[in-house]
């Protein structure tokens, strides 16, 4: 028995009604689409985060036995924490655009009527999410391995958030440049590390008094936070300005 034909979309129902019209997809829609795809793919495949976390925890173990110390403070603690996070981040930065390069995602995105800065913003947001997730795991491990008190952790989280933002912006820029090179695994860290020297100075400068013996101090804390914020602003603006050229032919 056949009933009335059900209403369903036909392939002749073209989504574009007006021929010749140029419709640019809103950047927010493009941003959420790309970010959602990246996070979904990472949750499904776990290609970056577990490697980053394992690298960081292993590095803490090496520092603990290499330095033969059960407690760290001041500049040494700040250096151990930041350098470990930075090197672990490089693993994620190297993989940030791999799906786009290997699976043609760059072309698919370049064919879409979107502002390319949405791709930069989405990739930087994805990297920022990876870094924050990484730190949720490794900062408690760092505290267990090296800290006598957890009083410094709340302000430390603020410093790491600002530092992560700058690292995400710089890392996304460098990763997009390096991804089409055969030597991308070498190129990304070699170009990235000099660029993040100011960020590293500011991050460790802000972390040092927080991790001082006797509890957190705030000597020049505001100045270092302002430096971190300025670095973030500069590299977010640079990324916004130049990313379009980086992904073009």
């Amino acid at each position: 028995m056949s009933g009335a034909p059900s209403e369903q979309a036909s392939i002749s129902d073209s989504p574009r009604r007006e021929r010749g019209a140029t419709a640019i997809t809103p950047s927010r829609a493009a941003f959420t689409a790309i970010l959602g795809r990246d996070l979904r793919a990472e949750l499904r495949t776990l290609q970056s985060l577990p490697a980053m976390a394992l690298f960081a925890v292993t590095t803490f173990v090496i520092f603990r036995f290499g330095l033969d110390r059960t407690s760290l403070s001041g500049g040494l603690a700040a250096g151990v924490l930041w350098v470990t996070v930075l090197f672990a981040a490089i693993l994620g930065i190297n993989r940030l655009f791999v799906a786009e390069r290997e699976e043609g995602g760059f072309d698919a995105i370049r064919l879409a009527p979107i502002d390319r800065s949405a791709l930069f913003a989405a990739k930087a947001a994805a990297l920022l999410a990876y870094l924050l997730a990484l730190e949720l795991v490794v900062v408690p491990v760092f505290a267990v391995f090296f800290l006598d008190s957890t009083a410094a952790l709340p302000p430390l989280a603020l410093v790491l958030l600002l530092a992560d933002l700058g690292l995400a912006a710089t890392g996304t820029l460098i990763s997009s440049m390096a991804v089409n090179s055969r030597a991308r695994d070498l190129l990304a860290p070699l170009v990235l590390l000099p660029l993040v020297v100011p960020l590293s100075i500011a991050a460790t400068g802000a972390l040092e008094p927080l991790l001082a013996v006797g509890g957190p101090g705030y000597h020049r804390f505001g100045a270092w936070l302002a430096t971190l914020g300025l670095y973030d602003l500069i590299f977010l603006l640079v990324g916004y300005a130049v990313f379009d050229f980086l992904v073009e032919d």
Partner: protein
Amino acid sequence: MTEAIELRGLRRDFGDHAALAGIDATLAAGETLVVLGPNGSGKTTLLRILATLLRPSEGEVRVLGARLPAEAWKARGRIGFLGHEPLLYRDLSGRENLRFQARLHGMRGETAEARIGALLATIGMERRAEQRVAELSAGMRQRLAICRCVLHGPELLLLDEPDSNLDAEGRELARELIGPGEGRTRVLVTHDPERALPEADQILRLASK
């Protein structure tokens, strides 16, 4: 008749090698241009220039009225490109890939879902739509790639060997989406002139470099 494509003295170099040189062609809206030529003659390069994915080194290129590369943004979103790669993420399912593409092209909600459902049904992929692309055969990926290519209702189809990896059934189903007719404007790159020439309004033969 409106010109969909106008090429004047198109040239594209890769280093010292000229992949394309002195290409002149025009294609009116609703017509099919078949591009023939041996391997290495620049067929794929030509298609990628028309798709705004490559910049011409010299010459004048207009696609859908937009001068390339300066006005490429006017043409993007109005072109459907089917290249050698399916341009699909392997870790997403077929339906997730099409949803992602739909959002990049500004399609949302029920409109996008209805369009995706109709395309998957037309190409015979409804039952495989939830499988990850990595688990699909090359032929199934090509069917999905064809859905991706026409998802946004492009005015111009750029098709590089669209029958690649398709079986006889797949080729027939694909004709409904990317075949001649319904006023489609198409540039068709092929190594199978016997099949393509009957569909051609114009032919562009590229010589080996």
